[in-house]
């Protein structure tokens, strides 16, 4: 009898995705076939992959060697617990996004639906292969496949010049990152020519080469994840892409970079140095602060979410850094605590950010508008999307009792232990970094209130919004799936930690599960209940019970009468939609307090203007500090080199002659 190992099931899933994609080409313009049949099928495959990973977690690694590849260089694949956690993330997030996508694609938007179906499923399959790859060659092939397919997805609407530009920038930075990753793998082979990960693990790296490999990996995966200063593609590519693709990129693809970073720093590069963690933490803190501040001042809802993703990636890097620090000093329990926070945040962010991006997709379809200044009041027209977005917003703001809070709570608990570090100044500086994390969390709340309040609440800022229609049934199912996962991740932390603990144990040798499991399933007490505990279920139940009892008592003891009148607003007469805060107005405090962080082009009205207007454009300082000088340098060097090109054959012959003479002089025996 043929038994299927989990790794076989995952391979079959990848192949099925590819097959679904190719089938899409059979009828590229048949929206019903592609949308209502192929995408739900892809979602089912995602569910299969997710369940397989769930079933696998805790088992011992499985390997497979594929017969494809180059001669003497086949693809090695391996399914271990680290991979399984990320496959779980990929599978379950895909279910929601694919079902949503089934109802999302419309006629006449850029690339034909069938072709997008191919690109989308190729993207999924290559992400799965990235996670499964067990040699540098397979990894790089899958990684490039992921970058290319997502490039084509980003530029689906390629008739707009700005979308083409965003895609180009994305492709460029993806390749700068890929080169760094390739170099990192090269360093880790130590010249042995063995490109399998097993070979790399077997090498004894000197601290110098290990550090070099780590730094290259940090740069390469950081470019994909959006760490400073390689984040610039993210806020361009996410708004350009169709919403399910933005959701997939932000929710899942960024996490593959985190996966790669974890794989290299804990598994392949050898014993970590303490300063690796400091570097990751420093970059992470800068990224988080930068991301959240820019997210709070955006006027485009998808850019706002894209910057918020940068912030979350920053927090993940902080967690990773803290884990590396603890790990390098052999404090494995604490490392397990923060590593669990990293895994948890990966899962939580994948789900709630996909949810939010998909909600913007529904809003975009209903209103054809991405600019916050032209939205508003959509909770009246799109209640489903609005209430489900609220779930994502609360999770994204890192508030209890939803998923974002659990990881934040674990991370802060980790910081509370950092004074015990056996290093004379780390134990002073690291706890203070928690202050920055706290600031970031609080600012994330500001950005999320802005996002939800301006899009869904208030009066409609444009008359056309009255015609907005709520999301269709497919889209609703996708959103409900993701919102449900957000809630589950929020209220069942112990169960989830019990699941991902296998991966923690694999990387560190110890996990949290035995400590967490020692208490009731609803209680999260990673170290001991006297030290810290959190029971989200009781938390939620108390608030809900208090609210319901309060409401019932008031209605019973008094009455439930209510009547509707125009808004009061202190009796001011001008109460039109233009009297509300704009997106720019809402973020004015941030721009004012953190003014040096932004590059602003402002236009103020003067008393003589016939048509006075105010405008502000917030630019990314990194463009002006880093990228434009770099572009100018490249341009300058190119101009110098063009001087060589005279166009006369005699001159070129002279060059050859001179080169020969120089070579003869240099290569004299």
């Amino acid at each position, binding site marked *: 009898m043929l038994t299927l190992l989990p790794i076989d099931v995952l391979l079959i899933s990848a192949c099925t995705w590819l097959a679904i994609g190719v089938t899409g080409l059979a009828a590229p313009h048949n929206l019903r076939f592609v949308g209502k049949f192929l995408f739900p099928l892809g979602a089912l495959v995602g569910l299969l992959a997710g369940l397989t990973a769930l079933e696998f977690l805790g088992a011992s690694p499985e390997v497979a060697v594929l017969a494809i590849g180059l001669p003497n260089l086949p693809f090695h694949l391996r399914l271990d617990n680290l991979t399984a956690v990320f496959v779980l993330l990929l599978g379950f997030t895909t279910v929601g996004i694919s079902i949503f996508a089934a109802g999302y694609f419309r006629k006449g938007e850029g690339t034909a639906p069938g072709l997008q179906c191919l690109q989308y499923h190729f993207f999924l399959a290559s992400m799965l292969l990235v996670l499964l790859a067990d040699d540098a060659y397979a990894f790089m092939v899958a990684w490039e496949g992921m970058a290319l397919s997502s490039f084509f997805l980003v530029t689906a609407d390629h008739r707009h010049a700005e979308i083409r530009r965003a895609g180009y920038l994305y492709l460029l930075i993806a390749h700068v990152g890929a080169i760094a990753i390739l170099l990192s793998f090269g360093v880790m082979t130590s010249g042995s020519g063995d490109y399998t990960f097993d070979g790399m693990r077997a090498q004894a790296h000197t601290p110098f080469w290990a550090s070099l490999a780590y730094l290259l990996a940090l740069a390469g995966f950081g470019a994909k994840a959006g760490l400073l200063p390689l984040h610039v593609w993210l806020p361009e590519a996410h708004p350009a892409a169709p919403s399910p693709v933005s959701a997939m990129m932000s929710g899942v693809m960024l996490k593959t970079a985190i996966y790669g970073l974890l794989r290299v720093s804990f598994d392949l590069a050898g014993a970590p140095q303490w300063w690796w963690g400091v570097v990751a933490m420093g970059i992470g803190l800068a990224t988080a602060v930068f991301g959240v501040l820019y997210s709070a001042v955006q006027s485009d809802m998808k850019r706002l979410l894209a910057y918020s993703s940068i912030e979350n990636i920053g927090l993940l890097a902080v967690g990773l850094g803290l884990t590396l620090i603890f790990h390098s000093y052999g404090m494995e329990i604490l490392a397990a605590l923060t590593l669990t926070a990293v895994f948890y945040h990966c899962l939580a962010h994948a789900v709630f950010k996909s949810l939010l991006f998909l909600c913007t997709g529904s809003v975009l379809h209903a209103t054809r508008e991405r600019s916050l200044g032209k939205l508003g*009041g959509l*909770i009246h027209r799109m209640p489903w999307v609005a209430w489900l977005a609220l779930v994502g917003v*609360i999770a994204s*703001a*890192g*508030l*209890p009792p939803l998923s974002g809070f659990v990881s934040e*709570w674990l991370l802060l*608990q980790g910081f*509370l232990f950092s*004074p015990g570090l056996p290093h004379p100044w780390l134990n002073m500086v690291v*706890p*203070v970094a*928690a*202050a920055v994390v*706290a600031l970031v*969390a*609080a600012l994330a*709340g*500001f950005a999320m*209130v802005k996002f939800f*309040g301006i899009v869904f*609440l*208030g*009066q409609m800022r444009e008359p056309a919004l009255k015609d907005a229609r709520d999301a269709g049934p497919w889209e609703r199912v996708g959103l409900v799936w993701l919102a449900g996962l957000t809630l589950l991740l929020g209220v069942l932390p112990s169960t989830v930690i019990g699941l991902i603990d296998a991966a923690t144990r694999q990387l560190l040798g110890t996990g949290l599960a035995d400590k967490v499991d020692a208490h009731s399933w609803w209680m999260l*007490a990673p170290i001991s*209940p*006297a*030290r*810290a*505990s*959190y*029971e989200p279920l009781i*938390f939620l139940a*108390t*608030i*809900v019970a208090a609210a*319901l009892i*309060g*409401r019932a008592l*008031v209605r019973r*003891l008094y*009455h439930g009468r*209510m*009547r*509707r*009148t*125009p*808004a*009061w*607003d*202190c009796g*001011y007469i001008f109460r039109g*939609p233009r009297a*509300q*805060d704009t997106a720019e*107005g*809402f973020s*004015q*405090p941030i721009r004012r307090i953190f003014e040096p962080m932004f590059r602003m082009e402002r236009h103020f009205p003067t008393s003589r203007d016939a048509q006075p207007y105010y405008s502000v454009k917030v630019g990314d300082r990194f463009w002006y500090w880093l990228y434009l000088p770099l572009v100018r340098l490249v341009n300058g060097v190119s101009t110098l080199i063009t001087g060589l090109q005279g166009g006369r054959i005699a001159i070129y012959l002279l060059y050859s002659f001179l080169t020969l003479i120089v070579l003869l002089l240099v290569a004299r025996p």
Partner: protein
Amino acid sequence: MSISGLFWQIFAIVMALALAPLLTGWVNQCRAWLQNRSAPPLLQPYYMLHKLFHKDVVLAHGASTLFRSVPVAVFGCMLLACAIIPTLSTDLPFAPAADTIALVGVFSLARIFISLAAMDVGTSFGALGGRREMLVGFLAEPALLMVIFTTAMISQSTSVVTIVETLAHRDFVIYPSLAFAGIAFTFVSFAENARVPIDNPATHLELTMIHEAMILEYSGRHLALIEWAASLKLYAYSCLGLALFFPWGIAEGNSIGGLLLAIPVLLAKLTVGGGLLAVIETINAKVRIFRAPEFLGTAFLLAVLGLLVRLMLETRV
């Protein structure tokens, strides 16, 4: 969890519900005395609540379901906060549900709800209030967390109960870091409870309002619940401050004698605290909204300084 623990837990919640408006009334009375005004009756907040509950809700046309759900949600959040802060005894069955970090989360959850409700009707003052509330929030929250970090590092725990037990019962040591943390906490509680110098609970000038601007559109039972929740918040912050910095008198376990002693001690502490609050409010002027970052930035720096003092100067006990 014991039956008596559950009883005293529920007793503490009921006491919070009953005492919170009284505390607000007491602070208002002290303020009036200090400002040479004739004081409103001590029970004025109860009369207000009763009156508001009787009145019809007058709802703006543009208000959504969110607007109507927020008062009960905020009320629920504040009730939970009061349930997990030890007031009388440290034997609280609800306390493991949330530690101090989660407590900060409860307050910000309530803040986000009320800010969203303020933006819901779509009036100019509502959005202005919501934006300012979030501004105060993101400045105050990190400072509050740093205060909590300092106390948590002293007691090696973020659980409120353990912190109180450590500070009140295990050992009596003077911690300089707690002085910094205490001042920072006072700053933060003024900002969070919409008091002078950040906000004025008695203001009638729309442009300077924060909290009042957010709840302009509320009326009837909704307003009553929000006002009650605001009282509960003041009560919760006062009790949290007392628990972190003056924990003496809170009974460990639930012996009847200790608890009977704890009630008058708590009342005395709240009376003194409310009086001090009124004094500070009277001798300060409300600052412009863009001085608020300076005020709360100071609080944040003091809190971080407290943390550094803890890390550098105090040996690990």
